[in-house]
């Protein structure tokens, strides 16, 4: 995936569409947006950094997982098999991008009022006592659709494609505009690239 920070307007569309797609419980954000200000008055600008699982080629979360719950899928996507996860949370400590969440207990957005029908429908997917994270919307990919955050970005800041294909749009964007990754020094070979603002 390539995220063009020049196009990102910090609308939280990716975060919301991800929530809507996966119905993740409170406190779990597969995709999220970091905002911060840079510079000093009067030369101040707001910076946006959308973050998600980087689906690293050398993912430390896969190495430390004792049960092989964290694993590589076809196409290099890193996913979690929730039936294997024991909830040791070692993967959360190993991820340099802190994009994994532990779903400790079943909970709802409206507390004592109980789950909304939407939450109830979506919550069946999510087991408690296990770690959760972005899987690039694997079920959507299987249907030939784009990940929800990519499909719903109003400024088309996100591009999804095959990084192994040198002629793909993502490869060309990275080559032409000098794509960079977060924390390359961690040696994890992340597969989410950013284009400078």
């Amino acid at each position, binding site marked *: 995936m390539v995220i063009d920070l020049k196009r990102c307007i910090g609308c939280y569309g990716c975060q919301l569409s991800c929530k809507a797609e996966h119905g993740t419980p409170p406190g779990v954000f597969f995709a999220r947006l970091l905002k911060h200000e840079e510079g000093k008055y009067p030369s101040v600008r707001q910076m946006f*950094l959308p973050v998600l699982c980087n689906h690293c080629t050398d993912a430390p979360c896969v190495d430390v997982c*004792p049960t092989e719950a964290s694993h590589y899928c076809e196409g290099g996507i890193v996913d979690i098999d929730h039936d*294997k996860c024991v909830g040791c949370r070692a993967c959360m400590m190993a991820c340099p991008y*802190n994009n994994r969440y532990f779903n400790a207990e079943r909970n709802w957005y409206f507390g004592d009022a109980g789950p909304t029908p939407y939450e109830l429908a979506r919550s069946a997917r999510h087991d408690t006592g296990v*770690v959760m994270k972005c899987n690039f919307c694997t079920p959507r990919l299987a249907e030939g659709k784009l990940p929800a955050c990519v499909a719903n970005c109003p400024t088309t800041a996100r591009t999804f494609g095959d990084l192994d294909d040198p002629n793909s749009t993502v490869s060309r964007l990275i080559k032409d505009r000098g794509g960079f990754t977060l*924390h390359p020094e961690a040696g994890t070979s992340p597969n989410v690239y950013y284009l*400078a603002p």
Partner: protein
Amino acid sequence: MSSQRYDQLIADMRSDYRPQREWGEGKGILLVVGHFLVGVAGGTWVMSSLYHVTVGLAVAFVLGALGALVHLAFLGKPMRAFKMIRHFRTSWISRGFVGLSLFLVGSGGCLAIGFLGLGGPWLVLALCAQGLAAVGTVIIIGYMGFCYTASKGIPFWHSPLHPALYIAYAFRGGIAALLVISAATGVVPGDGLLQLWLGITVLVCLFFGLELYGAVTGGNQAARRSVHDILAGRLALLFYGGTLALGLLVPVLLIALPSAISATTMALIGLASAAGDFFVKLSTVRAGVYLPLRRIPQTAG
């Protein structure tokens, strides 16, 4: 998720240095307790074997079993724990699970054969059990440090000194347990136990000092933040009160007393030393903060 926990998570996500809270806070404290108990169990097995203290071997087994139970209680899905054997090739948690299993089977077998006074062919089995216990001990003493070192997301833990430090803690814990056992049974295994405690304590202080120095001089901003949190931040009370005062100053003062060391004094030294080890582990775990994510190059390339 309670409202308080949710608010805490959102506040953490907004902060530049997001602290890890899964290991060391709430139910996560069970992991620290588990690591502490298993480390002391390994150290106690080694020291009791060296000094031929049978009660110590039994105590090591009980501590190991307790540690295993506490580890299980920490897991989100404890009934699936047996699956942790799968990834022995790269996962230190998996190796720790195997090591602890070997230790419990081996030490339990050794103790059972010794307790029942079995002879003849059982001695061969006892030898095998001793071998299993020895292999298990080596693994459980070492694996915890490597678990932390493998955590690339927490720069302060991602240090090659961490395993050495945890091995030293295990021996210090073993000596502390032996001091308490000596006081309780009235059998002092040897003259050199306190000197050995002092020697290992110096080693622990040296390793810990080097780790902090390394994090401050060679570490990144997150590692430096962790050191700040321990020495002058949110964990300072735990570190100065629990680790330095209780775990170091109290035992050293007790040893330095002009009068002869009594059984009560020995027990106090052991307990204070063990408490200090627990607090230093807790401080180190709680000091873990994630790498900040906000470093964006301003231009392409």
